[in-house]
């Protein structure tokens, strides 16, 4: 498995500032002909140690699967802010 950061795929991505969708499209252009799998991970998210393996395992079980997403775990603690955030999510 090789992990590519969007900014390192094309140095112009960081300066073009056309948004995430534009960056994903650039990576799609590279990967679509190859049939490879793309992992999208937001900057404020941190996967559990075996999370990526579990995603790939689920995807590999079904050739008709195009998208497999993760299960979000929100660490908020116990506070008024936490209660508000739980309500928002």
């Amino acid at each position: 498995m090789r992990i590519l950061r969007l900014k390192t795929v094309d140095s112009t991505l960081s300066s073009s500032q056309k948004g995430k969708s534009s960056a994903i499209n650039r990576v799609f252009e590279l990967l679509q002909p190859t049939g490879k799998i793309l992992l999208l991970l937001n900057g404020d998210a941190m996967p559990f140690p075996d999370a990526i393996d579990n995603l790939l395992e689920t995807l590999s079980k079904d050739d008709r699967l195009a998208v497999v997403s993760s299960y979000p775990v929100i660490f908020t603690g116990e506070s008024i802010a936490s209660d508000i955030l739980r309500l928002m999510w």
Partner: protein
Amino acid sequence: MSREGANNHSCDEMMVVRPSYLAKLPPGTINDGAYLAGLATIKGYRVSYSPDAKVIIDVPTRLADVRGQRLPLIVISPYAKENYVSETLLSHLSILHYIEYNWILNPLNSAVAQANLPLDLFYFNTQPRPPLILNSTGPYSYKSYPVPLQIPLEHLEYKRSGSLINTPDQYLVPTLDIATIAIIVASIIYIISTRFEQRKRTSARRKM
């Protein structure tokens, strides 16, 4: 969010996709995860999630950090700009301010008066756009995603992003109007004079 049994919704905090099954995202797509999942379904592919693929979402834990959390605002109007993202910093007060602005009303208070107006979300220099009739079939149905644009992007008469004014945090700092300042000053003078009187009485008693 992905939850048990909700296989048709996609958490885009972390996901794996097969790019060869999908197509490019439209420019400026905000919810890329939902778009890719919807596109995959329309193309006849499947969408799923893995409950064992856990991802930690970093969210604020203090009340002070809640300020600045994103809140969606969708403007529905025949004059709303199409495919437009506003960079104007808005709050709930902005909606009140807009009502006051539109109906020429006096502001409720200084905080509302200073809230940024969402005026850049509208384009009034044209005829109102006709309504979109949502249906079970046709271009404006759940079977068509994304919904086709009413005006082709190349014919838009305005930029697709912008800001009317950029004064971050302006409205978050409440300013004091003259009446409030007068009350505060009067209170301070009253407190000082009361204490001064008390000291005078105390020293007079000691002398006696």
